[in-house]
């Protein structure tokens, strides 16, 4: 009995918002190695398509845009393809379906920390996947005129884009609790990434695709990222950040609104 009497001193207490985020993210990060089946394709597929695209279009692209380093030109596409739509949303759906999400709701954790903690794990994934993709590019001859700092900024922009886009799958996960719906959120990826100057520079595009690409925020993200291989361009960086944050504002607003609805009593 004495042990149990001792335990009377142990009482739950609120630990503050950031410690809540830390606790939730710690669990999400710990589970990452147990979800390799989800992460490996996200790494292999973009590298495969990067290699195929270079092999198929490099010569043609040189005809269209004189002096274009097509390997560098395609690198941001490979990076965005790697991270766009990837998130812990499927894991969140499993938490909802398995009841663990309700255990979290029963705890004193701040509601926003439930999502922010997962976003932290997503950033770890995005950086973890961007580095090998970038390393592959460097291995096949991609060079940065902006040096290591340029490569670092490219990696951080990739992670930031991935993070801002996660709001869509999280919103679907929290609204529906349905794994199929979350998997189908991948469809959003296609218009965002491919209705852009993904294959050729915007100057070489014509007709409706050129018009759509102009209004697609990802166009500005790709173009800003591509400048990092050539030189620092402050205006391009600002446009890139504005485009990323604009999409993020919409997607994360949807996600946090869905979280509020899911957690509403």
């Amino acid at each position: 009995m004495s042990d149990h009497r001792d335990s009377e001193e142990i009482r739950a207490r609120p630990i503050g918002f950031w410690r809540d985020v830390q606790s939730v993210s710690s669990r999400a990060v710990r589970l990452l190695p147990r979800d390799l089946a989800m992460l490996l394709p996200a790494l292999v597929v973009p590298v495969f398509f990067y290699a195929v695209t270079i092999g198929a279009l490099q010569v043609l692209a040189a005809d269209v845009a004189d002096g274009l380093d097509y390997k560098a030109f395609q690198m941001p596409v490979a990076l965005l393809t790697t991270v766009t739509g990837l998130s812990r949303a499927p894991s969140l759906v499993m938490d909802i379906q398995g009841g663990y999400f309700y255990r979290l709701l029963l705890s004193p954790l701040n509601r926003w920390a439930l999502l922010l903690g997962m976003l932290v794990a997503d950033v770890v994934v995005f950086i973890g996947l961007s580095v090998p993709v970038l390393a592959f590019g460097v291995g096949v001859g991609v060079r940065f005129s902006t040096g290591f700092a340029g490569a670092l900024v490219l990696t951080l922009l990739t992670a930031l884009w991935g993070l801002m886009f996660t709001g869509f799958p999280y919103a679907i996960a929290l609204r529906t609790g349905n794994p199929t719906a979350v998997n189908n959120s991948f469809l959003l990826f296609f218009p965002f990434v491919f209705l852009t100057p993904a294959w050729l520079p915007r100057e070489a595009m014509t007709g409706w695709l050129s018009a759509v690409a102009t209004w697609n925020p990802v166009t500005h993200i790709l173009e800003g990222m591509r400048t990092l291989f050539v030189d620092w361009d402050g205006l391009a960086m600002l446009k890139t950040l504005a485009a990323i944050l604009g999409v993020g504002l919409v997607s994360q607003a949807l996600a946090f609104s869905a979280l509020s609805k899911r957690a509403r009593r």
Partner: protein
Amino acid sequence: MSASVVCAREVEGLNQTTPGIVTRKLSRRFGSVEAVVDLDLNIPQGEIYGFLGPNGAGKSTTTQMLCTLLRPSSGEGRVAGCDINTETAKLRLRIGATLQDTALDEKLTGRETLTYQGRFYGLSRAAIRRRIEEVSPILEVSALDRRVGTYSGGMKRRLDVAASLIHNPSILFLDEPTTGLDPMSRAEVWAQVRRLNSTFGVTIFLTTQYLEEADALADRVGIMDEGRLRAEGTPEELKRSIGSDVISVKVGDRPTAQATEALSGLAGVAGVEFRGGEVTVACVDGAAAISPVAVALAATDLQVMEISLHKPTLDDVFLHLTGRRIQQEGMEAGSVVEDAPAGTITDDGQTSAGAHGHP
């Protein structure tokens, strides 16, 4: 003065001293459906309270309101001294809850599950280690370093309960903790619930659709049906309320008014109820009454299939209160046996409707 007492004194109308569970006219509506209606509870600290009723009676809705997962449509309540509407954050620190389905992450190990649960509640690493050491043997949670996905149903349920206790709550909600478990696992959970209450002094709010579970575990039982609390008391009080003994008679035909009048006129018979092919005779001394009952039935045109004498069960209480049985052999627990409109013939021979208020 403890914080819980301070909380309790802020609202008028509720019991101001109990740190357990108190509700007044607690209600929850889903559209036009009234899931819980005007529920009044007063559960002192340290009690095991059995909340008994069939599926759809409003048990889980009540639990969710008391655990802060669901906002009441009206009414008020305090759990561990905290208002369920306005002090949800404080309340969550003081309660543990095991919901109807196990709420575990199958990719975590048992130890990780308990450790994260401790972290979510702000426990230090040393405190978490100590609580895991204390809670695990009591709940017989073995294989803590295996992933939860490899656990059996019984082990998952035990881990689920352990996770709800890691932060040393003063009140534990167990929502149908043994549903879906085999009899051996069910008996283990019962033993654990008793140990939790006796060792830690935890107040336990146990919802169940198993009559024998409420009977075996609960200090007091509340019987819910169609969102309303029909009766409340110790299992013995509830059973005594319908007589010392019960004679059940299964007949081939529906009882006639003549038959029921013949039975209700017998000496020592406190009441006769009938539904479909069954007559239930409540009496003070069953052994003395069974022969006269059999003789009286033989004089009627009823075909007697089976006659038995037994002590009243909570199922008999439920039948008495609602005109239906909560379960019957061979049926899934929690099923309500719908039958012909129930009626009661009191010992003065008058027939009345089946549903009643508190005994």
